[in-house]
């Protein structure tokens, strides 16, 4: 780079850091506030930025415990946050594993096995996945309403139904993993074929072990996507006990029952694990995001 005068450079540095600090203060303001609110008394209190009488009430309630106030009144948790969290994690894990299995196997076939009309199929999959499931919610509702008459397992308000619909989100992941498989030398599977391995064995013993890094990226991406889904879950899930976090959290800020403080504690409790997972995985995620999207 061009040599700059030290005075200029220092001025620029101060400017850059100053900008960053101001910007970060603005951006991170909601996080500071939520932490502060979660320790504040009551659900409406306005006033102090820092809680004047810090209380653990909201945190007790978030963990599903009764809280006894100083005046002896006992407050019971308004909503089963831990149950919702468990529902979200359970659905996210099962659907994530399912999506991973479906997309890895399909990606292998699309990359290596000769199938009639493969190119057309790949292109149409890509076009179909651009239609977000959220737009077909009316149909999804009607479908599961009808299936529920056959068996409640596949009906409305069932986790199985939700997982089934999440499994359809495989297309983008098929493309990501296929891109990875395409970069593997074909000599490898030819050698396996000569040794008498079936395509399944080639997949199971050669490609699967090689794909572990990209599979972990896909799994984390899918898992976070499912945890974050609101529209589909809100249409399918009805009862409080079956709700996922995304659907349930909304109940806190109801106009008639506004539980700002309780929500703050529950939000931190449920958001923190997902945030940590994301931050750990983000380096791989980002490369996965842009690669998967641009590889055509």
């Amino acid at each position, binding site marked *: 780079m*061009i040599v700059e005068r030290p005075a200029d450079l220092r001025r620029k*540095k101060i400017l*850059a850091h100053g900008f960053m600090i101001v*910007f970060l203060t603005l*951006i*991170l303001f*909601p*996080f500071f506030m939520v932490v502060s*609110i979660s320790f504040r008394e009551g659900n409406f209190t*306005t*006033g102090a*930025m820092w809680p004047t009488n810090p209380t653990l009430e909201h945190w007790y309630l978030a963990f599903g415990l009764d809280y006894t106030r100083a005046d002896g009144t006992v407050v019971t948790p308004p909503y089963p946050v831990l149950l919702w969290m468990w529902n979200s994690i359970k659905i996210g894990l099962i659907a994530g594993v399912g999506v991973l299995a*479906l997309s890895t*196997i*399909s990606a292998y*076939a699309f990359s290596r*096995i000769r*199938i009639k009309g493969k190119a057309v*199929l790949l292109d149409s*999959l890509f076009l*179909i996945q*651009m*239609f*977000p499931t*959220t*737009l*077909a919610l*009316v*149909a999804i*509702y*009607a479908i599961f309403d*009808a*299936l529920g*008459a*056959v068996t409640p397992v596949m009906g409305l308000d069932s986790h199985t139904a939700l997982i089934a*619909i999440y499994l*359809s989100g495989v*297309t983008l992941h*098929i493309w990501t993993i296929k891109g990875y498989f395409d970069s593997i030398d074909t000599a490898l599977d030819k050698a396996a*074929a000569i*040794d008498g391995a*079936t395509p399944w064995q080639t997949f199971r013993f050669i490609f699967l072990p090689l794909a572990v890094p990209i599979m972990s990226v896909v799994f984390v991406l899918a898992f976070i996507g499912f945890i*974050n889904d*609101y*529209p589909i879950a*809100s249409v399918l899930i009805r009862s409080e006990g079956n709700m996922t976090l995304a659907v349930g959290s*909304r109940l806190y*800020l109801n106009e008639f029952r506004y539980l700002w403080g309780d*929500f703050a504690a529950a*939000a931190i409790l449920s*958001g923190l694990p*997902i945030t940590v997972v*994301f*931050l750990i995985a*983000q380096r791989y995620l*980002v490369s996965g*995001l*842009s690669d998967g999207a*641009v590889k*055509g």
Partner: protein
Amino acid sequence: MSATVDLTHRSNDAEPLSSAIPRLVAVAVISLGLLFGAFYLYLLAQPLFGAILLALAVGIAIVFGANRFYGARFIFPGVAAVLIFIAFPVIYTIYLGFTNFSSFNLLTYERTIAVLTARGTVDPATEQPFAVARDGDSYRIWLPEAGLLSDPVALVAGAEEAALAPGEAPAELLAPRDAVALRAGLQSLMLISPEGVELRNAGLRTFATVTPDYLRTGDDTLLRSADGVTLTADHTRGFFTTPEGATVPPGWRVNIGWGNFERVFASKGIRGPMVSIFVWTLVFATASVVLTFAVGLTLAVILQWEHLRFKSLYRILLILPYAVPAFISILVFRGLFNQNFGEINLILEALFGIRPTWFTDGTMARVMLLIVNTWLGYPYMMLLAMGFLQSVPEDHKKAAALEGASSVRVFFTITLPQIIPPFLPLMIASFAFNFNNLVLVLLLTQGLPDIPGTLIPAGQTDILASFTYRMAFNDSSQQFGLAGAITLMIFVVVAAISYLNFIAMRRAASRRSGRA
């Protein structure tokens, strides 16, 4: 090892019968289960869904049963999931757009008739309490006011008649709770008094003469008992109608052709808000992309600067909004922006003495939506921009700087033109995402404040997707058909965007491979 390996037919004879049997059994069990579901759906008057299950069953049987389709086995599950849960719902939504499916026209024709003919008016003069007594395996009904005891009845679901005769009160009566458990049987039971009066179960605790409100008199006609008017089934509207044309709810689902589309385009109360919502959707999606791109790129450029320290710390902190689950941060903003006791207004009032009405003023609500969406979306753009900035050759910038160009000039003439092309497909994808950013609107404003003077709920911050969502899943009226029709229009826009994206992506891909 054999010297010649036939690669094309390696799978056909590789499998011994012993390993094929468990697979074939599993295929048979799954197919039969699906066939049962298909048949059941057909019985429930859902032939379309039945056909889908049938197709799935046949597909599984063929692909996993026959060795010919060994290759297809790998992609069948994934493709089937996409077809059933994305492609089919999309097509079905379009189909629903041509029906009157709504909370008023929810049932099938047969169910509508069953519901109407099951309605009855209770004659209060004959209403009397009853009790149930056990008689061996069956039961007797005891009417204490009339002193009548019925013949033994089985009380299983299904029409049943029993005569009443004067008698003594049975020694032991079932507790009311146990009688309630027999409700299904009681409801289909008709008791005939010695005078020939027919008594039916009229409530949890009483029997009475119940006159049916509607009698089926023909294939498509019902007789209304109250005024003797004959109702005729109108299969174009999906309702029973009086000769004057008044409809009798509930109705059933019928195909109404372009009816929903005519409603959208002809009715001013729907067309007006639709147009403004469409415009706002475009503005919202465009502004979101531009804002997140501008903020993200600016930050990426600063983070790339070689003299900046604490880069990785800044980077992690800047990514945080992206890392926190969106549904949580959106709800947090909903609370922070609260007009009356939200922290943002608190600070604004302390600093500038203003209290913007974020939720009741349309413009402020839109501004808030964009602020929150920029907050949510800039880290993604920043991360992508950091990647693309690295691929801009350093010597280009150096050459320009040597020619005396300022760093701002270098950025706009050298750097920006080089990163825009690879960015384009991702920006289109981001546009498409925001075009349907249902989560943000539903969780932050729910589309409110409402546009005044509309026929259907339509808000000033509603985007097309949330507008249809509210239309279909609102508590007051569920207009699935109309929502389907509007969804079809969204599909057209999405299809156009998808096509653009597809082209842009192909170009980006070929440019990449061309360069490499």
